């Protein structure tokens, strides 16, 4: 029964989304505030009904109602409560319902943000919310026609197939909702681009209205990608955090385009320039999000994350992708203003932001080409090919490095035209800090060149962020700025935190990639072995049972430097899903991890090593991952910067309060 009610709620939300699109279109065309209010109601009700539909689905999961196909395939009565809830979106149909809900909420938010004064901005918001209503309706149409989460199974099975155990993890319970806040957030950015082209909005006002949405979507995407990388690190048990896998690339491409958009909108809002370019980027961001959904859902490119394959649905998403992309660019070709905006010299903030966009767009195109290349190669020459980390590291790395070198300078340049180099002089200290970082890495840790150059870049970026903060605090001396630092507005922190985060991330990523060590050892109970610079003694292997899995747990005593501590990596076997997983043990020492994965008994699969005696031995894979904490910490700082920019921009909508603070 609850399933039918849920389906009814979803249908109601579908109808209300169509209503939202029609009402708000009419409101904007007639300039009718009453219609705008009705459209807002429709959007709000659509969100509520979409939420009720999701709650109905969660209820079905909580009750383990196996007459529902997706519950039967993805749940089990013994599964812990949180994964019963998360199981609602840990599958294709449920995640599409979540997608629809997020689309509705964004639509309601943009309709609510429209001021009630009947100004141009109000009608821009109304148009954007109308476009968002179309996007929600199309999402619901796809949900109801091609992936109904409330479909019944007859006869109902007695037991469920359980959620993929790799997904039964706290980070992965949160990962899809947050990633969708990012992906679907790009649809609002798209909606604003369409609304702007439709009404030929004045560029500065348009950028001002669109920028918070771009910041929101991009920041959520940052958090979502980081959670995914963190999950891959500790759950897959491979010791890596980024594999340049098609699914990862799918989320990274809109992130790169979104980063370009945020910087481009900065110029459009302040100087009215790059208006057309910002619109193109906004359209591209959503197209890339849909392309990502297509790549993930259709399985056209095989991936290590291949748990969501269904070619037929891929066609649907491809149709939506084509509609959004060609529709968007078609409208652009027809309605673009073609105005250059206020002029600027190449050596200026605008000029450097243009280079920033070149770097990010070329990086994004490179990731896109690398991801699609296996398809292109097979279609053109018939030859199969793989594109893996060696390609991306060799191409993407240097381009991005160039952008990172220029970033601190771009922040300090004047708008319009830079005269002389005085304002860049504080960066000389950054050169010194970069050298110190590199030398510290080489002398202190005998780092290879890649790690040393990344350390230098980190020093440069951190110094640049510090100089930026100093300037924003406005003190004549460092001490004075330190006292004033509390008075720096939130939006002023955005660039400081994000660029500092890039520095921290670069340090971690470079050092970890170049200097990670991996060793495999085999131990019998009571034996001691050396790996990753530490001594491991296997005290025993015990078995126990979790709610829906069996556990083999190794008890290790680790002597690392002067310290002695216990580690207990596990292997689990999820009996309902018939899937084994590894639960690694991680010891964090100042951001460097000692990472131990528990492998199979030696000889269990025709082992390669002849033991001297007949004792049973188990394999352990030991990774020493230096500074890996900096990777996730840096990414978190980047996201925090994005949220600061977002929150600092909310609530300032009245006319006549142009931003005078540094942007």
């Amino acid at each position, binding site marked *: 029964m609850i399933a039918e009610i849920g389906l009814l709620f979803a249908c109601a939300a579908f109808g209300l989304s169509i209503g939202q699109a029609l009402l708000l279109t009419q409101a904007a065309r007639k300039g009718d505030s009453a219609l705008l209010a009705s459209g807002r109601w429709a959007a709000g009700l659509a969100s509520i009904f979409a939420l009720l539909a999701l709650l109905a689905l969660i209820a079905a999961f909580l009750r383990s109602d196996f007459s529902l196909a997706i519950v039967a395939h993805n749940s089990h009565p013994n599964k812990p409560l949180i994964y019963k809830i998360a199981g609602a979106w840990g599958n294709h149909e449920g995640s599409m319902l979540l997608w629809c809900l997020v689309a509705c909420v964004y639509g309601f938010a943009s309709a609510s943000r429209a001021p009630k004064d009947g100004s141009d901005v109000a009608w821009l918001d109304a148009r954007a919310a109308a476009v968002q209503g179309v996007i929600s309706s199309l999402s619901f149409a796809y949900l109801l026609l091609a992936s109904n989460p409330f479909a019944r199974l007859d006869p109902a099975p007695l037991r469920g197939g359980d959620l993929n155990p*790799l997904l039964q993890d706290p980070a992965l319970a949160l990962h899809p909702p947050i990633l969708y806040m990012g992906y679907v957030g790009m649809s609002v950015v798209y909606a604003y681009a369409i609304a702007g082209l439709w009404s030929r909005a004045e560029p500065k006002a348009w950028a001002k209205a669109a920028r918070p949405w771009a910041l929101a979507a991009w920041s959520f995407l940052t958090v979502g990608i980081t959670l995914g990388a963190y999950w891959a690190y500790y759950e897959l*048990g*491979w010791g*890596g955090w980024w594999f340049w*896998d*098609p699914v990862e690339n799918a989320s990274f491409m809109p992130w790169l385009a979104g980063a370009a958009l945020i910087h481009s909108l900065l110029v459009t809002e302040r100087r009215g320039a790059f208006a057309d370019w910002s619109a193109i980027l906004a359209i591209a961001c959503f197209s890339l999000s849909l392309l990502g959904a297509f790549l993930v859902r259709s399985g056209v490119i*095989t*991936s*290590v994350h*291949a*748990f969501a394959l269904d070619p037929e649905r891929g066609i649907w998403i491809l149709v939506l992708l084509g509609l959004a992309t060609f529709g968007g660019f078609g409208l652009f070709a027809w309605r673009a203003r073609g105005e250059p905006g206020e*002029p*600027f*010299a*190449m050596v*200026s903030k605008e*000029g450097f932001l*243009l*280079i920033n966009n*070149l*770097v990010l*767009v*070329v990086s994004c*195109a*490179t990731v896109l*080409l690398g991801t699609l*290349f*296996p398809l292109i*190669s097979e279609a*053109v020459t018939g*030859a*199969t*090919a*793989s594109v*893996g*980390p*060696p*390609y991306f590291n060799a*191409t993407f790395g240097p381009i991005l490095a160039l952008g990172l070198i220029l970033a601190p300078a771009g922040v300090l340049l*004047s*708008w*319009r*035209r830079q*005269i002389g180099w005085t304002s860049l002089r504080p960066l000389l200290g950054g050169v010194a800090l970069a050298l110190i970082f590199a030398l510290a890495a080489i002398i202190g840790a005998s780092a290879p060149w890649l790690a040393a150059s990344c350390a230098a870049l980190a020093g440069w970026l951190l110094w640049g962020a510090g100089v930026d903060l100093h300037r924003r605090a406005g003190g004549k001396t460092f001490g004075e700025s330190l006292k004033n630092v509390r008075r720096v507005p939130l939006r002023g922190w955005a660039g400081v935190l994000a660029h500092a985060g890039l520095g921290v991330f670069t340090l971690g990523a470079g050092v970890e990639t170049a200097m990670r060590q991996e060793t*495999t*050892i*085999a131990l019998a109970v009571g034996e001691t072995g050396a790996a990753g610079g530490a001594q491991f003694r296997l005290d025993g292997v015990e078995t126990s049972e979790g709610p829906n899995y069996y556990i083999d747990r190794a008890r290790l005593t680790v002597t690392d430097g002067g310290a002695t501590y216990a580690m207990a990596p596990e292997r689990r076997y999820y009996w309902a899903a018939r*899937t*084994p*997983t590894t639960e690694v043990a991680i010891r964090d020492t100042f951001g460097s991890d000692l990472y131990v*994965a528990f*492998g*199979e008994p030696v000889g269990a*699969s*025709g*082992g*390669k*090593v002849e033991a001297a005696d007949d004792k049973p031995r188990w*394999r352990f894979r030991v990774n020493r991952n230096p500074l890996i904490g900096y990777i996730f910490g840096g990414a978190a700082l980047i996201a925090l910067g994005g949220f600061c920019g977002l929150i600092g921009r909310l609530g300032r909508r009245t006319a006549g309060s142009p931003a005078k603070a540094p*942007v």
Partner: protein
Amino acid sequence: MIAAIILAAVMGLEAPLADPAAEKRAQALFMEIKCVVCEGEPIAQSGAEVAADMRIRVREEIAAGRSDAAIRADFAARYGEEVLLRPSAKGIGAFLWGFPLAAFVLGALALWRNAASRRRQTETLEPEAD
């Protein structure tokens, strides 16, 4: 999921090469060769038995004094081009490898020409602080 099953099935345990420089070359090659039964994973990370065999083969070839290029060619001949995660730069691969630099240079050139054409207009502009 398949990858996870294979991963848990075995974790390779092979003797590293005695010469650290040779072992480093082997480790680098492990990152460039795809495990043929996994999905998009290099043999460096894979726990699959085939991957372990492939790692042993890489070490044997290095010990036999073969160059990295020759080893890559051997693997490509045996398992097909798609075994190489560093795709070849021949044929259509030239486009793949050439694209990033070409796109960047063309983009930069367009920016530079655009700036040059507007120089007269912009060289009298007054700077504007934040």
